[in-house]
């Protein structure tokens, strides 16, 4: 891989555009309006085409303003169709943006005769050519797209920074915002305006596909990893920059491995963003699939372990000689608990390692530590049965199952309250002895 100065510029342009999109994108994600970003970036096409036809040039203020106006129009029109026509929200959005896009495609077909433009450059952008059009600023040659996107980013940061509180409240609770004297409707259209302007500023250099992705994906990653708006914005910014850097590196390093030269950077940036999303979805600390699976697995293991201890205790209780710990054969235990062999062995090994059970030739037996844990559990179980019987009118044959579930989620305080409420009986509804509390000397 050879890295030229213009590669740096490509990454900078991509990162600036991605950042500019990611910030308002977070608010779109929170307001459940992500598809508005998609719709606006399709719908600006006729605005661009008309501006091309009128001014016969590709980069001008009228173009920018015209396209952004059509973008805001998309939001207004689809809101109008939804409200006045009573059309379902997604359908209303679909009708409006496809119609505008269709108009745009036809106009572009005609504009192509006069100006060098086709729909492809709107879709894919020309980020690879971005470094070629430079402007001189304070003696430095800076690519014009970097200036445009940087400027847009600055505007977004300023607006979001100044109106942070207002936008935050309107995003989470428009009604509250209204009662606090914030004009939620104005905030809505301000956001739409920002999105439309950002889309137009970015599309020419990076293409609308990167714009749509950067409006949605970084915000989504932020939402998966964080519960605070400020950190969500920060994460989104990091995702945006990472996508730009890794995307371009990937575009010029990965294809040669398969015998190609390179591929479109904008596409690769989106792919990287998608990869980052999959990572966040899988490994996010709180909402990630893997971490949730691990938590669940741990919980399942603890419950199975507790059940096994309690079963050992009950079997021991049934044995005639209670002074010497009776050994219980593994197969007997397994039959009582109805566990698959693998999990059964795994659990026993864990308990053995935790010194909660001992293994003898005759079978397994509880250690003292194991027994006091098990006793506590059985006590909770039987107290629950008593409580449910006394207070909830649960039928006698349903008590066990309910208590079986509740016993794993009962804290010591709760157990104490249960005992108080039920009047600390000696036996449960089935006539089994309720073990005394652990710190009670009389056993």
């Amino acid at each position, binding site marked *: 891989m050879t890295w030229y100065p213009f590669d740096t510029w490509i990454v900078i342009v991509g990162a600036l555009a991605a950042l500019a999109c990611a910030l308002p994108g977070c608010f779109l*994600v929170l307001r*459940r*309006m*992500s*598809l508005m*970003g*998609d719709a606006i970036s399709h719908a600006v096409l006729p605005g661009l085409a008309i501006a091309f036809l009128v001014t016969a040039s590709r980069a001008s203020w009228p173009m920018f303003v015209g396209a952004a106006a059509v973008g805001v129009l998309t939001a207004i029109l689809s809101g109008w*169709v939804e409200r*006045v*026509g*009573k*059309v*379902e*929200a*997604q*359908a*209303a*959005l*679909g*009708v409006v943006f*496809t*119609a505008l*896009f*269709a*108009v745009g*495609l*036809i106009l572009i*077909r005609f504009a192509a005769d006069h100006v060098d433009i086709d*729909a492809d450059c709107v*879709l*894919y952008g020309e980020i690879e050519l971005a470094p070629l059009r430079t402007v001189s600023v304070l003696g430095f040659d800076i690519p014009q797209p970097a200036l445009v996107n940087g400027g847009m980013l600055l505007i977004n940061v300023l607006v979001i920074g100044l109106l942070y509180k207002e936008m935050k409240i309107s995003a989470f609770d428009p009604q509250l915002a209204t009662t606090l004297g914030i004009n939620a409707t104005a905030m809505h259209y301000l956001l739409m305006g920002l999105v439309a302007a950002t889309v137009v500023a970015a599309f020419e250099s990076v*293409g609308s*596909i*990167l714009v*749509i*992705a950067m409006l*949605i*994906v970084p*915000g*989504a990653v932020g*939402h*998966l990893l964080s519960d605070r708006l400020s950190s969500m914005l920060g994460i989104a910014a990091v995702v945006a920059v990472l996508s730009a850097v890794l995307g371009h590196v990937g*575009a010029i390093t990965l*294809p040669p491995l*398969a015998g*190609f*030269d*390179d*591929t*479109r950077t*904008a*596409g*690769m940036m*989106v*792919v990287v*963003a*998608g990869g980052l*999303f999959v990572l966040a*979805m899988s490994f996010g600390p709180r*909402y990630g699939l893997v971490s949730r699976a691990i938590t669940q697995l741990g919980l399942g293991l603890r419950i199975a372990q507790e059940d096994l201890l309690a079963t050992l205790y009950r079997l021991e209780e049934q044995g005639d000689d209670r002074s010497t710990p009776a050994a219980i054969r593994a197969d007997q235990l397994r039959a009582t608990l109805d566990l698959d062999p693998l999990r059964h062995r795994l659990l026993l090994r864990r308990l053995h390692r935790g010194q909660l059970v001992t293994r003898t030739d005759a079978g397994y037996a509880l250690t003292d530590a194991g027994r006091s844990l098990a006793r506590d559990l059985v006590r909770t179980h039987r107290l629950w049965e008593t409580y449910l019987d006394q207070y909830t009118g649960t039928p006698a044959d349903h008590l066990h199952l309910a208590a079986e579930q509740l016993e794993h989620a009962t804290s010591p305080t709760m157990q104490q309250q249960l005992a108080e409420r039920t009047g600390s009986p000696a036996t449960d509804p089935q006539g089994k002895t309720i073990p005394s509390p652990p710190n009670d000397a009389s056993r």
Partner: protein
Amino acid sequence: MPELWEDMLRTLSLRDHNTRVVVLGVSMLGLAAGLVGTFMVLRKRALLTDAVSHATLPGIAAAFMLMVAFGGSGRSLSGLLLGAAVFGVLGMLGVQAIRKYTRLKDDVALGIVLSVFFGLGVAMLGLVQEMRQGHAAGIDRFIYGQAATMLGADAMTMLVMASIVVAACALLFKEFTLVCFDEQYAGAQGWPVGMIDVVMMGLVVAVTVIGLQAVGLILVVAMLIVPPAAARFWTDNLLRMGLVAGVIGLVSGYLGATVSGMAPRLPTGPIIVLVATGVFVVSLLAGTRRGVLVRAWRHVQSVRRTGLQHLMRAAFEHAELAGDEPFAADDLLDRRSWSKRELSRLLRRAQRYGWVVPTSDDRWRLSDAGRREARRVVRNHRLWELFLIEHADIAPSHVDRDADRIEHVLGEAMVEQLERTLRTRGEAVAVPASPHRIGGDDKVTR
């Protein structure tokens, strides 16, 4: 000019074999899309189709690369469409997975799948265009679509597949209806809801994929959304909605294909979408069931009826206090918050109905018909007031306002029930006395 005319006629009347197949194929596609889209729109999944259609792009690129790798030219349409279908399904699964396993909402799931799959497609197309083997030139047509350049055989494929989709919709109409309106109920009745859902989504992918060539992947979503959304304005009946949507789709498909056949510079997809959007706008305004004009007209009617009934009640209550002498318009002015102008307009309208009669000295009196109507309204009003006082424990001074709103919509059955509840009997008890003070100084009346 005669030549051009001849040309148009040839296209419109489908005399060319090739044109005929293409136009038929696109029309049938429109019909299929309208039918399938009806269910998607009613299930509030309209933009799922957008995610699916964008997700097909990497499938097309991957299929092309695979076919070239195995020595083909990569032009086999069925191969490309198969790739598209596989990725369409993958996209749909992606949406489901994000919706199910994360806390992100529908719109984000759709947006992510749409943009990431499309980005992947763009990156893969970048590779495809560098391939020296195969003919990559035609791949782009799947993004924008162009029916006019379709080959007869390709169009035939489209025609056959669209017909299959239409047939499947017809066969499974009852099942789809059930899932569409009450999934839980359908499940409880023992219908294989999951399976029906899978078939429905399969049909969506099928329509999307066969629509790629003709209208392109960005606009194919419009064929699924716009006709059903337009049809919704005309009917509340699902079967009719599906049929209307199908016909709108068929007509837009036909016009789109013929127009772009006549003027090859005009792309097919946008024409189809614009025709359908035109129908949508007309339906939005003029739809007989939910159109804006009809709803506005109904609103005006109900405001007028309400106004008249208010007038009759005011006149009746005035007569109760002041006797049956003719009244002046000013006598009623204090009874509601209405302007002089409003009141005189209402009086003129009531006169047209024959409910009030002007007397010589610029006064008015109730006709017999007017008295009957007034009695009915006042009776409804007071029955409701009594009901509120007796059964809802609302103070007599507060019941007037509630009754004021409901008196206009009380049906006969409701009135009978009120009579039963209040143990008053039909016309025998004419009009109960007002439970609260009435009169100009009673501000509660307002």
